[in-house]
């Protein structure tokens, strides 16, 4: 019985949150990795693009709520999601036309793009704060839980409860759909194949008549969708705050690099590696260990390896380890 309780406690506090967080990171990292693969630069504005997309979703959610439109028990935000994607796509294609295209024609080195993306980051950050303010926004509605802790206890008779928030369920389901669609697109469609060709070898792709501007345009559209979805899922699961989204940049980049920059499979794997390490290292293991250990060995402290405030340190340390021992990432990205 203790063993079962330990497993339930573990799933409740570690596995389920980490799977949800990992899915959010994975979708975010997919966006970074696609831009890296096609446009060949590290987009520092990605966190703020996610914030922008989420902001549009929140504004539409509020509007729908005020009109009484809802798809309960699902959160209204899902209904607003397509509008968020649309606006983010317009924004990204707009910035590409106004900002990035110039440097593409100049054939600038990647570092210049990176600095340009810092400028875009500044503008998006200011824009989001200007429109919705720097504060915390909660916009989740609909049913809060798929399984409530108390129901689970009554159902199984265990001492530990298992709660699954609906936002976590939605995150995982959406992530699976998004990733399946993306891979189908990249592997089966003509456009997707041309994107992969362009990413693998630009010169050969140009030679075989692939239109680079079209590839870039489609990349931005996909990235807009990915960024908005990732941001909205994260916001539904936790809450929306512009600065938090900026800070997500580090775990997202860590995920993309750990998996191998430019490799979509790698981005997904990296997302889960980072999320699981972050959650397990900052989790207080006392509860789980109390069930597993004999009574005499009960831990006295919280058995928390690292305070939650240091969760960035976890992604950073993993990043450093990967950089030291396998700079191309787990899935041999195109880095180095």
């Amino acid at each position, binding site marked *: 019985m203790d063993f079962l309780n330990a497993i339930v406690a573990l799933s409740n506090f570690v596995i389920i949150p980490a799977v949800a967080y990992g899915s959010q990171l994975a979708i975010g990292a997919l966006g970074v990795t696609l831009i890296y693969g096609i446009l060949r*630069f*590290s987009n*520092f504005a990605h966190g703020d693009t996610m914030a922008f997309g989420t902001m549009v979703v929140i504004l539409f959610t509020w509007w729908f709520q005020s009109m009484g439109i809802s798809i309960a028990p699902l959160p209204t935000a899902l209904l607003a999601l397509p509008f968020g994607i649309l606006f983010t796509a317009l924004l990204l294609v707009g910035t590409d036309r106004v*900002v990035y295209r*110039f440097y593409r024609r100049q054939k600038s080195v*990647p*570092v*210049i793009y*990176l*600095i*340009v993306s*810092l*400028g*875009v*980051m*500044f*503008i*998006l*950050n*200011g*824009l989001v*704060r*200007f*429109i919705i*303010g*720097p504060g915390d926004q909660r916009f989740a509605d609909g049913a809060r839980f798929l399984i409530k802790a108390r129901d689970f206890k009554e159902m199984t008779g265990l001492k530990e409860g298992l709660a699954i928030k609906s936002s976590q369920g939605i995150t995982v389901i959406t992530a699976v759909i998004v990733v399946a669609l993306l891979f189908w697109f990249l592997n089966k469609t003509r456009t997707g194949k041309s994107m992969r060709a362009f990413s693998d070898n630009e010169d050969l792709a140009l030679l075989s008549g692939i239109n680079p501007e079209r590839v870039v345009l489609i990349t931005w559209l996909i990235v807009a969708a990915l960024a908005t979805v990732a941001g909205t899922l994260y916001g539904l699961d936790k809450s929306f705050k512009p600065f938090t989204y*900026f*800070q997500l*940049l*580090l775990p997202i*980049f*860590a995920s993309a*690099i750990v998996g191998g*920059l430019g490799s979509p499979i790698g981005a997904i794997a990296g997302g889960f590696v980072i999320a699981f390490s972050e959650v397990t290292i900052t989790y207080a293991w006392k509860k789980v260990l109390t069930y597993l250990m004999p009574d005499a060995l009960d831990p006295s*402290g919280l058995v928390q*390896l690292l*305070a939650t*405030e*240091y969760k*960035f*340190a976890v*992604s*950073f340390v993993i*990043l*450093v380890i990967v*950089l*030291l021992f396998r*700079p191309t990432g787990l899935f041999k990205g195109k*880095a*180095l």
Partner: protein
Amino acid sequence: MSDQTKTFSLFALVAVLIIGTGFVQSWNSALFILNMGLISAIMSLGVNLQWGIAGLLNVGVMGFVALGGLATVLISMKPDPEAWAAGGPSILLGLLIGAATIGASIFASRKIAKGWPRILGVLAILLFGFVLYRLTFIPAVKAVEAVNPATSGYLGGLGLPILIAWPVGGLLAAGAAWVIGKTALGLRSDYLAIATLGISEIIIAVLKNEDWMSRGVKNVIGIPRPLPYEIDLQNDPSFVERAANIGLDPTTASTLYVKIGYALLFTIVLIALLWLSQKALNSPWGRMMRAIRDNETAARAMGKNVTARHLQIFILGSAIVGIAGAMMTTLDAQLTPASYQPLRFTFLVWVMVIVGGSGNNLGAVLGGFIVWFLWVQVEPIGLWLMQVITAPLAEDNALRTHLIESAAHMRLLTMGLFLLIMLRFSPRGLLPEK
């Protein structure tokens, strides 16, 4: 217009802007802009060394600034004997154990042959060291933080004069830069950017949470000054008399005296660093650095150790930023870890370097002043603009109140636009590299 007249007229413009602020707003705010402008100029000098001369992307300027700030606390605050008695030695021992563990695992990973024995051995050392570290460190931290938590709750510093903290701040930053450089240099340039972004977030997290060292979010206030306090000046009869002689009341005179004193100190540091940077830039070493930046492969073919040179200049640049950070905390006389914002400290310094002219030391200094001036003045201008734009709307119109309340965020927008416009139309900056 020759280069020299251009440089001269742009710096004259900065002087006019600052003096103009003195006439239009107040001399106190003009001196505030001047002092922070001097510090910003030093920061951008450091980043210019890394980016402009060596082409290294440091996106963690904030962390090095914060380390400089930490140095002021560690050096100049009075030690707290009670806290030291409670757990000072154990904390030091714990840190030593932590460092020894990392050292031992690095040593082991170099000595043991590749394969499972190495992985297991290193893991065993890390695990054992970590447990030992926790056992000594955590109880000591709890004991220290329990000593007068409202007023102290930390170990304090060494009680040395604050000016010593400036070079020490540089040393701390250099140490952090060494660790980062060792791991991320020699790989793609983006990796350094991401690694520095990470380390700066971690440094801020440490400052916010390690209460025994920096009091965390409780802030350290009352950091000693290198200059007399206003109140002492006002009570000094000879000072009051001198103030009266130039027709100033003692309060204004004392604040101006202190601010001008800081301005002089900062100017000395800036001129010294600028002189050194110019010497370095025009030396064989500087030419080698630029050669490496312009064509790494060619430089490598000429037998230059590119990674080692990059590490060197990365450490130097970070040290300069650390010195500036220590100076800034000295000026504020308090360490507030929560005030370190990446947009303000990392990316704004980047705007300074790009706008001023990367690769040109004078340009970086100029950028520091101009961008800092804009950063300070954009807020009132934005507010004024919003009021003018929304004037036709009713006083309690929701849109109007929202726009006026959000005017503060105009700064980020303006800086981003400024950066993009410069990059597009004048990528070499106001004072281009020769």
